[in-house]
C-alpha cells in the first residue's frame, strides 16, 4: 500500500510530464537545500566563532585576569559552569523523576493533562524573569536554609566558609537553574517511563508487587538510559543558561572553589560573557568569543552524548 506514496502514476501527455518534473525538481531542490542549510548553519556557528575567537587564545595577558593565559582562564570558567550545572541537575533530578512518575503511573487521568501543561509553562517563563525573581524573592527566602546548612553541615567542604550576606550564592543559582531545567528533564523521563512494556508492568502486578515494586523492578530498569539522557539534556540546558545566573550569582570572575555558600563565587562562561561583553572593548570581546567557542563545543558534546544514549536505547527496545 504505502509503496504507492513514492511515485504518482503519470499517464498524461509529454508536455505535462515535463512541467511536472520541473516543478517537482525545483521544490525538492528547495527542500533539500533547507535541510542542508541546517548543516551549514551549525558549521557556520563553529567556523565564525573560531575565526573571530582564535585571536582570543593568545591575547594580551591583562585580559585574562586573574590568570595570565587562556587555558587556566577558560578552565576556571568551565569549572564554575560545570559546578552550577551539576548541582542544578542534582537538585532537579529527584523532582523530575517524581513528577514524571506521577504523570506516567501515579496520577489520576484527569490531573495528568493539566499538571503536564503547567510544568510546560515553567519552560515558557523567560529566564530573565526567573533571574529577577531569584534575586528579589528567592534569595531572601532561602537565607534561613543557607544559614542552617552553613551552621549544621559546615564541616562538609561544600557548605563551609563564610556565609554570604546577600544569599546570592552558587547554591541559589543552582536552585534557580534546577527549576528552569525541570520541564525538559521531566518530559524526557515521562516519555521513557510511558514506554515501559505494558506486559512487564502487568506481570509485576500479577505477581503481587505493590505499585512501587512494579515501578522499581519494571519501569526504572527499563528506563535507566532514558533517565540518564534526560539528566544530560537538562545538564546541557543548565550549562548554557545565562541571564538567570548573571542576575542571581554574585560572581567574582573565573576561579576554582567548592564552597557554594560564600560570596566568593566562580563565574560561569555564559554569565561572564554577558557581564563583560560591550560593543567598544573589542580585545576583550575576542577573548569572550573564544570562551563562547569552548562553551559551544562542551554543550555540543554533552547534548550529542545524550542524544546518542536515547537513540541507542530506542533501538534496543524497538
Amino acid at each position, binding site marked *: *500500500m504505502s509503496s504507492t*506514496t513514492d511515485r504518482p502514476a503519470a499517464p498524461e501527455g509529454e508536455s505535462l510530464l515535463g512541467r511536472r518534473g520541473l516543478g517537482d525538481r525545483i*521544490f525538492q531542490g528547495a527542500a533539500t537545500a533547507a535541510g542542508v542549510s541546517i548543516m551549514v548553519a551549525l558549521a557556520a556557528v563553529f567556523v565564525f566563532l573560531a575565526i573571530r575567537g582564535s585571536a582570543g587564545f593568545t591575547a594580551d595577558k591583562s585580559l585574562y585576569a586573574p590568570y595570565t593565559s587562556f587555558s587556566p582562564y577558560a578552565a576556571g570558567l568551565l569549572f564554575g559552569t560545570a559546578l552550577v550545572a551539576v548541582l542544578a541537575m542534582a537538585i532537579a533530578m529527584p523532582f523530575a523523576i*517524581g513528577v514524571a512518575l506521577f504523570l506516567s503511573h501515579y496520577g489520576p487521568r484527569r490531573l495528568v493533562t493539566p499538571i503536564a501543561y503547567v510544568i510546560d509553562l515553567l519552560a515558557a517563563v523567560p529566564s530573565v524573569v526567573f533571574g529577577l*525573581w531569584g534575586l528579589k*524573592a528567592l534569595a531572601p527566602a532561602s537565607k534561613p536554609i543557607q544559614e542552617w546548612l552553613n551552621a549544621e553541615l559546615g564541616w562538609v567542604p561544600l557548605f563551609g566558609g563564610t556565609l554570604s550576606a546577600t544569599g546570592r550564592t552558587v547554591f541559589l543559582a543552582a536552585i534557580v537553574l534546577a527549576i528552569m531545567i525541570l520541564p525538559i528533564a521531566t518530559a524526557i523521563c515521562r516519555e521513557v517511563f510511558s514506554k515501559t512494556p505494558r506486559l512487564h508492568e502487568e506481570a509485576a502486578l500479577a505477581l503481587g508487587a505493590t505499585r512501587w515494586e512494579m515501578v522499581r523492578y519494571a519501569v526504572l530498569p527499563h528506563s535507566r538510559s532514558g533517565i540518564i539522557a534526560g539528566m544530560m539534556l537538562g545538564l546541557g540546558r543548565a550549562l548554557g543558561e545565562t541571564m538567570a545566573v548573571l542576575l542571581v550569582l554574585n560572581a567574582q570572575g573565573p576561579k576554582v572553589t567548592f564552597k557554594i555558600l560564600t560570596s566568593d563565587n566562580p563565574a560561569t562562561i555564559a554569565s561572564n560573557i554577558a557581564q563583560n561583553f560591550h560593543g567598544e572593548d573589542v580585545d576583550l570581546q575576542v577573548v569572550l568569543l573564544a570562551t563562547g567557542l569552548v562553551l559551544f563545543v562542551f554543550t555540543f558534546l554533552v547534548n550529542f552524548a545524550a542524544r546518542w544514549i536515547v537513540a541507542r536505547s530506542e533501538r534496543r527496545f524497538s
Partner: protein
Amino acid sequence: MSVTDDYAADFATTALPLTAARLPRQAPLLAGVVALALGGLVGVVLQIPWVAVLVLAAAVLVVALPTWAYAVEGRRGAVDRLMTILVCYAVLGALVPLVWVLSYTFIQGIPAIDWSFLTHDQTSRLDPVTFKQLPGAGIKHAILGTLVVTAGAAVISVPIGLMTAIYLVEYGKGSALARIVTILVDVMTGIPSIVAGLFAVALFTELGDPGTRSGIMGSVALSLLMIPTVVRAGEEMMRLVPADLREASYALGVPKWRTILKVVIPTAFGGILTGVMLAISRVIGETAPLLVAVGAVDVVNTNILSGRMETLPVFIISKYKQGQDPLELAWGAALLLIIIVMVLNLAARIIGKIFAPKTGH
C-alpha cells in the same frame, strides 16, 4: 501437566492466604488531615510562619502514614506508601516555583503598567506644569523592538524550518542526509542561547565594522534557536497526515510538490501554526543573544538593518544594571513579557485543539 498439578496440590495443602491486611481506603486522607491539624496546632503554639506549618505537616505525614502502614501491612506496604507520598510531594514541589514566580511578578509589576508606560520611550520629557525634566518612564521602544526582532527571526526560520521538515518527511526518507539533519536538529535545540548571540556578532563583525550592532543580528541569533523547534513541530504534524490523502491526490495525477502544498500542508496547518507560535513564545523572552547582538538604546528604532534596538528582556536587564530603583519599570516590563508569552502559549494550544488534524479513520 503433572508438574502443574503437583504444584496446585502443594499450593492447596499449604493454604497460603490470598489477601493481606490493608489500611482502610481513606487512610491517606485521614493521615493528611491529622498531620495538618498537628502542624497547625504546633504553629499556633510556637507562632511560626504558615510555610513552616505546611512543611511540618508534610514531614508528619511522610513519617506517620508509612509507620501506620508498617504496623498493619508490613514493610512492603510501608515502602509503597512512602514512595507514593514522595511522588506527590515532587509534583507539589514543582508547582511551588511557578505559582511563586507568576504571582510575585504580577504583584511587583502591576503598579508600573499604565497607558503612558506603554506609549512612551525612555527619553526624558518636559513636565508641562513644572517645566522640569522628567526621566523617561515608558517601554514603547522595547515593545516595538521585541516585535520587530522576533518577527525578523520568524521570517528567517519559518520557511527554512518548514522546508527542512518537508524534506525530512516527504523527500529524505531513510537517506543518510536525512539522518544527519535529524541529529543536527536535535543538537541545535541544545545550542546555548548566548552562543547563538555570539555567532551573530562574529558573523556580522566579520562582514562589517567590529562595533556593529543591529536588530537583524538579533533576528539571526534567535532564528538559530527557533529553527529546530519549527522543524520538529512541522515534521511531527506532517507525519500525522494520513498516507491515504497523499495517495488520493497522486491518483488524480497531481504532482508531488502540489500535493505537499495543497494537501499535506493544509491538513497539518493547525499543528504547524501551533508549533510556530510555541517557537515564537520560546524565543521572545530570550535575553542573552539580544544583549550581545542588539544592545540597548533609549529611543524607538524600528529599522531592523541598522543601529541598536531596545527589547523587553534587555530593558529588564539594563534597568537592573543601572542599579537605581526604577526596578519597578523592570518588573512592569517583566510582567508584560510574561503576559505576551503566556497569551502566545495559550493561543497556540487553543489553535492546536481547534485545528487538530483529522486522521481520516
